């Protein structure tokens, strides 16, 4: 029976993957051919979605983007034999966008059936856990530390050091918390993994639990991802039935289980202490630090809070060894980073590469430049609180330190591209507006400063005493950066100041479009 792959990923579904699968299930038998349709994750080439793949003796052949109406003609044209023709891209693995990547974390995403443990194991799954079970907790932690893995959520804190801190706390209830509140607009790596390779995340969290002595894990998923929440909950159930979660993980003496929790529409809950408050059932107000969550985290107990992508890197590190992982990357940024190309990009999608790739290679080489075909003017890396960088800085390597040196940050790896029609003053205003809308309200600089920031930028745009108002804005940015309790207020000046520094001309003319209040 011919195996056909049609993604069940939310991004593919939004462009009609369900209807394509239905059309295949209807049209193939009508031609006397029986097929097996596998709903895989996405390969991360969004401009080709829905991407249909057919398994042949030579490998998997890709067709896309496939509309439901294309299906009869594709079948008649020999899709099930992998014949070339309209919409055919040849071997999936040979498509340059995929072939030129270094996929460690996303090695299986889009390849396997996300809910088949057999498939997961056949593609190297659960080898990391097997090795971890043969090691002492301290040895697991040292392996992660030696890999050089740093937090993939934004701050870039060494994961091994965080785990060591939790391991060193006295025995008692400890927790593992996976941050899947992927709120940065233009990012989707967490979602793709939850839907496309959930056992990888379960394996990574389980290894973390065994390493630090935690028996319970939570994954906090943003409510905008109901599909991912259902997919991940289903995977937890399957892992539990197979004895990979529960009282005796894989028949060992270790207990570990995971509970999936849904957020409720608060960007701030991506901040780790706010997330912990939310998990405890409270308003998502940021906590003072110290104490660090590693010492007093969820319900006051020692807690490892890591981004989902950090946990996702762990099985590879354990299975292949720290040196294998550390061999990728540059400087103090080791391993690979799943970059997410979005905005005005010709070929948006997921690109996993070793640290050190330049922004230009990512945007032009993989992304193919702007979708509009107009000149690129600005790039925002690291979500809505990342700096706007001009074209002249595109040769900066993607590396925690190199980006920081030009005033940028990697964040969660989102890269949003803007062409020359962008009004940077408007973007700067949006940053303040975003902060005002999403502030938890606990600290004054963020709660009040962001609203004042919108007002001051409006004054500048109205050309009212521009030098004095720009000085005021700079002063306000300094207070936000230095005195905010968490990164929301602390990073909001990034987009504002970088827009002022690199695109001053946009602040000294009438705005291109009338600006109306947009926050709710």
């Amino acid at each position, binding site marked *: 029976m011919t195996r056909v792959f049609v993604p069940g990923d*939310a*991004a593919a579904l*939004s*462009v009609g993957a369900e209807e394509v699968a239905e059309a295949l299930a209807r049209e193939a038998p009508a031609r006397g051919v029986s097929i097996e349709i596998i709903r895989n994750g996405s390969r991360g080439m*969004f*401009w080709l*979605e829905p991407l249909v793949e057919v398994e042949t003796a030579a490998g998997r052949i890709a067709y896309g983007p496939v509309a439901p109406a294309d299906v009869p003609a594709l079948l008649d044209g020999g899709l099930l034999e992998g014949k070339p023709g309209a919409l055919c891209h040849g071997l999936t693995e040979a498509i340059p966008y995929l072939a030129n990547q270094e996929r460690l974390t996303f090695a299986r995403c889009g390849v396997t059936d996300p809910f088949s443990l057999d498939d997961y194991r056949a593609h190297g799954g659960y080898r990391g856990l097997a090795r971890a079970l043969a090691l002492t907790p301290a040895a697991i932690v040292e392996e992660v530390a030696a890999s050089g893995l740093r937090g993939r959520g934004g701050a870039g804190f060494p994961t091994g050091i965080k785990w060591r801190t939790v391991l060193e706390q006295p025995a008692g209830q400890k927790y593992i918390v996976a941050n899947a509140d992927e*709120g940065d*607009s*233009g*990012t*989707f790596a967490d*979602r793709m993994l939850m839907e496309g390779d959930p056992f990888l995340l379960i394996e990574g969290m389980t290894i973390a639990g065994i390493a630090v002595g935690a028996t319970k894990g939570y994954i906090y998923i943003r*409510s*905008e*991802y109901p599909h991912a929440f259902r997919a991940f909950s289903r995977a937890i159930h399957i892992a539990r039935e197979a004895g990979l979660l529960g009282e005796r993980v894989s028949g060992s003496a270790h207990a570990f289980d995971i509970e999936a*929790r*849904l*957020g*409720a*529409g*608060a*960007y701030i809950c991506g901040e780790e202490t706010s997330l912990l408050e*939310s*998990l*405890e*059932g*409270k*308003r*998502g107000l940021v906590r003072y630090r110290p104490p660090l969550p590693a010492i007093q985290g*969820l*319900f006051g107990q020692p807690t490892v809070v890591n981004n989902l992508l950090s946990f996702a890197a762990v099985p590879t590190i354990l299975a292949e060894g720290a040196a294998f992982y550390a061999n990728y990357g540059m400087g103090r940024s080791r391993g690979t980073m799943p970059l997410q190309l*979005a*905005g*005005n990009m010709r070929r*948006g999608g997921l690109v996993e590469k070793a640290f050190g790739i330049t922004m230009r290679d990512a945007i032009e080489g993989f992304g193919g430049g702007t979708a509009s075909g107009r000149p690129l003017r600005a790039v*925002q890396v690291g979500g*809505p609180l990342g700096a706007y960088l001009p074209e002249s800085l595109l040769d900066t390597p993607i590396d925690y330190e190199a980006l920081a040196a030009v005033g940028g940050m990697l964040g969660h790896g989102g890269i*949003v591209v*803007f062409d020359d029609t*962008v009004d940077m003053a408007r973007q700067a205003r*949006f940053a303040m507006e975003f902060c005002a809308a999403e502030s938890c309200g606990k600290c004054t600089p963020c709660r009040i400063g962001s609203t004042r920031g919108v007002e001051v930028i409006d004054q500048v745009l109205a050309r009212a005493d521009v030098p004095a108002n720009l000085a005021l804005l700079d002063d306000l940015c300094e207070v936000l950066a230095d005195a905010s309790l968490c990164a929301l207020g602390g990073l909001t000046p990034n987009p504002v100041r970088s827009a002022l520094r690199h695109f001053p001309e946009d602040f000294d003319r009438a705005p291109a*479009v009338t600006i*109306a209040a*947009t*926050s*709710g």
Partner: protein
Amino acid sequence: MQAEPSMQELRELVAEFRPNRGHVMPALHKVQDRYGYIPRVAMDVIARQLNTTPALIYGAATFYTDFRLHPRPETEISWCSGPACRLKGGDRIREAIQQTLEVPLGGESEDGRYGLHIGQCNGTCTEAPQVWVNEKVVGNLTVSKAIRLARDVKGEAE
């Protein structure tokens, strides 16, 4: 509009939740999934079930933008505020819908039958600029398509 659910019905709905386990959010989600909003009486029931105060439940329910304390309008348009949609003229889509519906962002019609809310990027940016009509993506909008959509929503409601 349906009447408020009974205490008994609510007690059964949240019976699985336990105190001190962070069950506030799951309980609120379950109530909202059932009724489309969090009735006032539900907060009392959840508080009792979780051995805490209604004030704490109310605090959580009002912090998160997903939770609503009033029944949702029959038709709700959520306008995506993400950057991909903005880049493709999302602000003009919003203005067109606001003017046609005659409600502000975050507002509802006087009869409560339709409303316009701010949405956060859900990653389906290939469809930008988009809105969600009762959670169904309506993408690749133009100003004229948006006006037609809003007129349909308004017409059906009148």
